[in-house]
């Protein structure tokens, strides 16, 4: 590529190395600062991540879609009253509000094996983009295996542990929570799945959960995530527990097992 004789931007001769990593390398410079284009690219990624946190999830739209699929659902909310409150008080995001408890109390209770919880968490776009697609794979698998399911709980301003109270209420063995993960610049819509066996509100801790992280277009596929979840469910049913003592031994995609060989050392 030819350059102007006196370019305003200095390009990095190693620019093409950016094919080797997702890191933002070889950005060039304006003076010694970030060139305009690279600066705006960063702002764009940050805007997407910020919007994922702050644009509220359209729960009605999600509910409608579930209805069309013939899935039962119920809408609940944590004790966090708004987004600002939610971000600063994770303790409140783990507890259902009074209204939700009343709603649960008035709904029929049939004995169930599993509850599925869908919470907005820290990324509404994660749930908007990925919850439905994953549920369409998950629900038939659970149903086929003979599991009785509670109505899918759609929880506004929910943290991971909010599933405990819901599982508790239904006396469900399995609690499966789909939640929007903290967005990164490269993955604003990453969904996580937390699995807890015999979840109990105020008793279960993070050590009792298994996490399947990074479900998005460039991360785990729904099929890969489901495979991991099924493995965990089977293991939990056998061991009667979940969490640190239940290891996910499905092969991890990605992690490098190669040596330290690289072009700097050749």
């Amino acid at each position, binding site marked *: 590529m030819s350059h102007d004789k006196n370019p305003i931007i200095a390009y990095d001769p190693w620019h093409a190395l950016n094919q080797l990593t*997702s890191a933002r390398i070889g950005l060039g410079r304006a003076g010694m600062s970030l060139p305009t284009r690279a600066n705006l690219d960063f702002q764009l990624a940050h805007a997407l991540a910020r919007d994922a946190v702050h644009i509220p999830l359209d729960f009605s739209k999600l509910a409608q879609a579930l209805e069309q699929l013939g899935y039962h659902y119920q809408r609940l909310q944590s004790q966090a009253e708004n987004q600002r409150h939610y971000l600063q008080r994770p303790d409140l995001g783990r507890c259902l509000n009074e209204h939700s408890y009343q709603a649960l109390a008035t709904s029929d209770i049939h004995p169930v094996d599993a509850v599925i919880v869908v919470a907005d968490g820290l990324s509404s776009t994660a749930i908007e983009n990925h919850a439905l697609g994953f549920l369409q794979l998950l629900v038939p698998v659970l149903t086929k295996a003979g599991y009785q399911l509670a109505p899918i709980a759609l929880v506004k301003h929910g943290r991971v542990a909010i599933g405990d109270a819901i599982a508790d209420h239904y006396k469900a063995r399995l609690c499966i929570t789909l939640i929007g993960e903290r967005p990164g610049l490269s993955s604003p819509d990453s969904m996580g799945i937390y699995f807890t066996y015999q979840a109990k509100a105020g008793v279960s801790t993070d050590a009792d959960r298994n996490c399947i992280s990074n479900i998005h277009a460039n991360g785990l596929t729904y099929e890969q995530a489901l495979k991991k979840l099924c493995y965990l469910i089977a293991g939990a049913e056998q061991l009667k527990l979940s969490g640190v003592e239940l290891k996910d031994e499905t092969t991890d995609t990605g992690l490098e097992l190669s040596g*330290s060989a690289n072009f*700097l050392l050749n």
Partner: protein
Amino acid sequence: MYKTTAQHLSYDFKTLANVMAKATPARSGDYLAGVAASNHLERVAAQYALADVPLKQFLTEALVPYETDEVTRLIIDEHDQTAFAPISHFTVGDFRNWLLSEDASTEKLTALAPGLTPEMVAAVSKIMRLQDLILVAKKCRVISQFRNTIGLENRLSTRLQPNHPTDNATGVAASILDGLLYGSGDAVIGINPASDNLEATARLLHLLSDVIERYKIPTQACILAHVTTTLKAIEQNVPVDLVFQSIAGTQKANESFGINLNILEEAHQAALGLKRGTVGNDCMYFETGQGSALSANAHHGLDQQTCEARAYAVARKFKPLLVNTVVGFIGPEYLYDGKQIIRAGLEDHFCGKLLGLPMGCDICYTNHAEADQDDMDLLLSSFAMAGGSFIMGIPGADDVMLNYQSTSFHDALYIRQVLGLRPAPEFEQWLIEHQIFNASNQLKPLTEMPALFKSSLQKVLGSTDESR
């Protein structure tokens, strides 16, 4: 004690821990813990009360019980009465006045450090404005050495942080090369491994050690694995320069990290024994951050900034090369927005420096915090004005493994230009020798690769495509 009146209201704060917490400038983590002042008047009343507390009181009223907390025992048992003597008659308010005075010279502050406890410096920081924190920290000078010298006047070092989501060796190497060619990496080349196990850690340690050796870079390597993983690596003769560990300010919080003082001592001795340093042998790298004790439910009713300062007592026991407060990583439930992050960064730097630590700052934020690049620019600028020892260097400020934003290679060059700050002298020489920097502390214009890296780049990109 701990009583005051403000606007005809009388306050009785009852305990030192309570007056410290209530006097702390507002931050979300203290509200979350339920220890913060309930309104502005109560906060300033607590600040009046705190200003009147004699410094000696901190030696008799432990904020976490001596009997049950080894960090408290460390603080009390190793307190140097002789060093403390010149200010032993001060109140917290007197202490602030003296720190700001000309009498508090670099020499006197250096001599005073062993006489100060973390709680004393935390207390005085609570009644200081940002300009006070900057002015006093700037007078402190803490120098540490391994293969170069960190903390000299008008110097600012950077940790090159070439993280990769899957620890891919080629991806890591690409970020290292990018960083070196932007003049980054004199504090350390330090990788957060995607998986904390011995195999991954050893592989990355070899990679960094080989690169440093091949290109004769006057810097040190670190893989930020758990201290027990690094100890195993040392046992297996894997090359370890610096031992890393996250630390906190209470025994219980450290237990939640899986460490105690004995484990740190064992690791320190093991790394010292390797004698891999050239100009010095400061071989520990610690990271801290406000909120870590609370998040482990191990804060004992203290405010998060006081807990943070206590972590520095743990750090100074092991004479570290680097101590890094990772200020905005923990999220908005502890530090809500740019304003809280900026203040916390400057408080941590001030407290660390006063206690004699080589303080750097991971000037950073997550996407659910109310902060952006402008906030980071403000903290970077004021941190450098305060004489901060080092900052992070991450390609384009975007850590693709840890999913947060920190300072970029370009950010370091910005502040070098504005404040005339140079890298560590040994590293600066290397940069000049290899045509990366000119003698005026600026990047040289590059139309082709510096000779040092030319052949490696040709191998990976092909000789014809070298100038992209």
